[in-house]
C-alpha cells in the first residue's frame, strides 16, 4: 500500500465512522433535542437534568412554566394547569443558579408563546457569578449553532450509555403524566426531626458583611431576570420566596451568611416589584409551614404538599407582597427565629 492509499483509507474510515455515529445519534436523539421522542421512553432523570432539559424546553407542549431549583421539582404541572390555567411544564435545575434558569427561560421564550412563569427565587441561586451554573451545562445543546452539536453526536456517554437506554425503552411511549413525574423526588425521604441532620445551631464565628452578595445578586437579576420581564410584557411572572424551614435560617446565621443573604430578598423586591407583569409572593415566613419539621426532609426541602399549597396560594392571591415594609417584617421574623434557635442551641418549635 502506498502512503496516498493509506491516507485515503484512514480518512474515509474516519469520515464514515463520524457520519454513521452522528446519524444514529441524530436519528434516535436521546435528549430530544431535535424532536419529541415518540418511539421510546426518553431518559429523564435528576442526574442528567441539564441534558434532558434541553429537549424538554424545546419540544414539549406548554405555554407556562415552573422555573427554579430542587424546591420546585415537586410541583405538579397538572395541578397548576387546573389552578392557574394554561399548560405548565417544569424547567427545573437542581442546585441551579440564576444563569441556569435564564438558559431555560431563554429557550422557552424562543420556542413557545409563554403566558406565565412561576419562578422560585432562591437567594442561593443569586450569589453565583453571571456565567456560573450549578453543574456543567452542555451549552451546545442550548444554542442555535448546529455545528457544535458534534459534541452530542460523537459523545462517548451518549453512544455508550444513553443510546442503549433508549433502545431498552423502545416501544414504551411517554404520556402526559411525564410532566408531573419528571424530576419529582416526593416519597423518597423521611420527614420530621430527621430533617435536622444538616441543621446548625451554633453561634457564628465569623459574620459576612451585609453587602457581601449585593453586587452579584444585582447583576444576576439585571442579566438573568429583568430582560425576560421587559421583553415579554404579555407574560405573567409569579416570583415566590420558597418556604425553607426556620432551621435553614439558623444555619445561615451559624455559618455567618444570614446578614449577607437576607438583604437579597429586599433587593429582589426593589428591583422587580415595579414591573406590571411581576407579582412577588413570600412564603418564607409562613409560620404554619416553616416551624413544623414534619414538612421537611432537611432544613431546606419541603414535601410536595407544600408545593401544592403554594400553587393554591398563588391561585387565590394569598402571600402576595404588597410593600417593602411587609417583606421587611417577614425578614425580621426569619431573623428572630434564627436568633431564637441559636440562643436555644436546638430546635424549639415542634
Amino acid at each position, binding site marked *: *500500500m*502506498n*502512503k*496516498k*492509499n*493509506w*491516507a485515503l*483509507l*484512514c*480518512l474515509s*474510515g*474516519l469520515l464514515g*465512522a*463520524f457520519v454513521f*455515529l452522528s446519524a444514529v445519534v441524530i436519528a434516535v436523539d436521546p435528549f430530544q433535542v431535535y424532536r419529541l421522542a415518540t418511539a421510546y421512553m426518553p431518559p429523564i432523570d435528576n442526574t442528567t437534568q441539564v441534558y434532558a432539559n434541553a429537549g424538554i424546553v424545546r419540544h414539549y407542549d406548554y405555554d407556562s412554566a415552573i422555573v427554579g431549583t430542587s424546591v420546585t421539582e415537586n410541583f405538579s404541572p397538572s395541578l397548576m394547569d387546573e389552578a392557574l390555567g394554561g399548560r405548565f411544564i417544569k424547567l427545573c435545575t437542581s442546585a441551579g443558579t440564576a444563569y441556569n434558569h435564564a438558559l431555560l427561560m431563554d429557550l422557552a421564550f424562543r420556542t413557545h408563546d409563554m403566558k406565565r412563569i412561576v419562578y422560585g427565587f432562591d437567594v442561593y441561586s443569586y450569589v453565583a457569578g453571571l456565567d456560573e451554573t450549578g453543574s*456543567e451545562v452542555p451549552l451546545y445543546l442550548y444554542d442555535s449553532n448546529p*455545528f*457544535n452539536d*458534534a*459534541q452530542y453526536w*460523537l*459523545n*462517548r*456517554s*451518549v*453512544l*455508550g*450509555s444513553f443510546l442503549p437506554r433508549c433502545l431498552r425503552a423502545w416501544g414504551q411511549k411517554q404520556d402526559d403524566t411525564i410532566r408531573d413525574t419528571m424530576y419529582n423526588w416526593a416519597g423518597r425521604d423521611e420527614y420530621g426531626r430527621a430533617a435536622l441532620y444538616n441543621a446548625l445551631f451554633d453561634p457564628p464565628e465569623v459574620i459576612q458583611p451585609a453587602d457581601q452578595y449585593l453586587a452579584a445578586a444585582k447583576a444576576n437579576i439585571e442579566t438573568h431576570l429583568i430582560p425576560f420581564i421587559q421583553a415579554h410584557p404579555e407574560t405573567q411572572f409569579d416570583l415566590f420566596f420558597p418556604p425553607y424551614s426556620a432551621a435553614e435560617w439558623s444555619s445561615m446565621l451559624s455559618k455567618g451568611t444570614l446578614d449577607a443573604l437576607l438583604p437579597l430578598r429586599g433587593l429582589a423586591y426593589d428591583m422587580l416589584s415595579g414591573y406590571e407583569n411581576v407579582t412577588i409572593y413570600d412564603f418564607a415566613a409562613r409560620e404554619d409551614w416553616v416551624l413544623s419539621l414534619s414538612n421537611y426532609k432537611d432544613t431546606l426541602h419541603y414535601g410536595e404538599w407544600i408545593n401544592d399549597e403554594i400553587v393554591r396560594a398563588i391561585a387565590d392571591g394569598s402571600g402576595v407582597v404588597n410593600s417593602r415594609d411587609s417583606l421587611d417584617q417577614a425578614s425580621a421574623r426569619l431573623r428572630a427565629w434564627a436568633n431564637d434557635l441559636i440562643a436555644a442551641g436546638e430546635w424549639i418549635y415542634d
Partner: protein
Amino acid sequence: MLFNSYVFILAFLPLTLIGYFLLGRLPERIPLNKLFLVLASFVFYGYNNPSYVPIIVCSILINYALSQMMLASEKKGLRLPLMLLGLFLNLGVLFYFKYHDFFISNFNAAFKTSFALHHLMLPLGISFFTFQQLSYVIDSYRRTVPRYNILDYALFVTFFPQLVAGPIVLHSEIVPQFADEKNRRFNFDNFAPGLYAFALGLFKKVIVADTFGAAVEAGFSSALSLNTIEAWFVAIGYTLQLYFDFSGYCDVATGVGLMFNIKIPLNFNSPYKSMNIREFWQRWHITLSRFLTSYIYFPLGGSRKGLTRTCINLMIVFLASGLWHGAGWLFLLWGLMHGAASVLYRLFRKQYDSLHPALQWLMTFCFVIVAWVFFRATSLADALAIVKSMLMMDFGPIRDSITSAFALPGGFRPGYNGIFMMIWYVLALVACLGMRNTYEKTMDFKPTLLNAFTTVVLILYVTLSLSGVSVFLYFNF
C-alpha cells in the same frame, strides 16, 4: 483552541489544511497561503480568549522591527542597545505576566509590605513564543540570521501546531521550509505519517495522560496520608502523566506540522530510557535544553572556563529552567535538584559511568521521579510528605480514589480496579522504556493495514472521549 477538542479535530484542522493548500496553488509571488495560515493561527490562539491576540501581535511587530534595525546596522554599538531593549521588553512582558505576583508576594512577605498583586491571566504560550523570538533577536544582534519578510517571521512565531506549548522551534529550521516551493503543495508522503503521529499523540495526551492524571490528582490531594505503596504509585503515575501529556502534545504538533509539510524538531526522545541526568536533558524537552544551552550556558562560558565555573553555569541554567516552568519556589527547588544532580554527574562522571548500566538507569529514573514530586506538589510540606512516605516502608492497601481512575468504562467490575491499575502502569512503563517513540515511528513510517486501523480507531476513540474535560498541564508554564 485545544488540539483535543471537537472544533480542532473536526473543523479547524481540515479547513485550515484545505485553505492552505488551495491558496498554495496560486503563484509563489502571491503568498496568500502564508497569510491565511497566520490568520488561522491567530484564530487558533484567540479562540478561547481573543484578548490574548493583541499581545502576541504587538510582540511579533516589536521584535521584528528591532531585529530588522539590527540586521540593517553594521555598527555593533548601535545594535547593542537595540538587543538590550529587545531583551528588556521580552523578559519584561514575561516578568509582568508570569512573575510579578510571585515576586511581589515574596517581597511583601519578606518586608511586611502590602504591594498589590495583579492576578493577571497568563497569556497562552507566552513562555514559548517569548523564547522563540528572543532567539531571533539575539541572532539578529549577532547578524547570524538572514532577513525574513514580515509574513515569514509571523509564520515562524504563530504557526499554530507549535504556538502554545512548543517545541521551541528556531527560525532557521522553520522559515526555510515555508519558503520551499515544493512544500506549497499537499503531499501524501508527509500527510500519512503526520496523521499517524497525530493519532498516537492524541491518544497519549487524552487517554493515557488524563487517566494517570486522575489518579495523581487523587494522590496529591491526600499527600499527607499516603502509604509507601500509594506514594510510589502516585509519584510514578505523575512521571508517566507528564511524559504522556507533554510528549503526546508534541507528537500532535509534529503530526500536524507534517500535514503542512513542515518538520517540527524532535522534543522528546524516550527520556525515561536515560542512563544519567545529562542524557535525560538531552532527551526531555530537547528544544528547551537547546535554547538554554545556546542562550544562557554558552554565553556564560559553558564548560570552557574551568570546573568551578562549569558547575556554577550548570546551576544557573537549571535555576532558569525551573523558573521558566513556573513562578514558584517549588519550581525553583526542582530546578535546583536537577542542577545539583547535573553538577554531581559532572564531578563524579567516571565513577558513575563505571556502575552497572541497570543501576545507572535505576538511579536516574528514581531521581527524576522524586524531583517530579516537587514539581507537581502544591506545597513543600506535601512534597516532603510524599517523599517521606516513599521511604517509610509503611505498606498498606491502595485507596479507591486512586485505583478508580483506572476503572473500566461504565464502571464494570470495580473490585478489579487495582488490577486494571497494575496493567495500566505496566503497559505505560513498557511503552516508555521498551518501545520506539512516536517520532521514530513517524520518521520511518511504513503504511500498513494495521497502522491504518490503529490510526482510525485511536482518533475515533479520542474524539468520542472528548465529552469529558481534559486539562493540559503545560499551558501556563
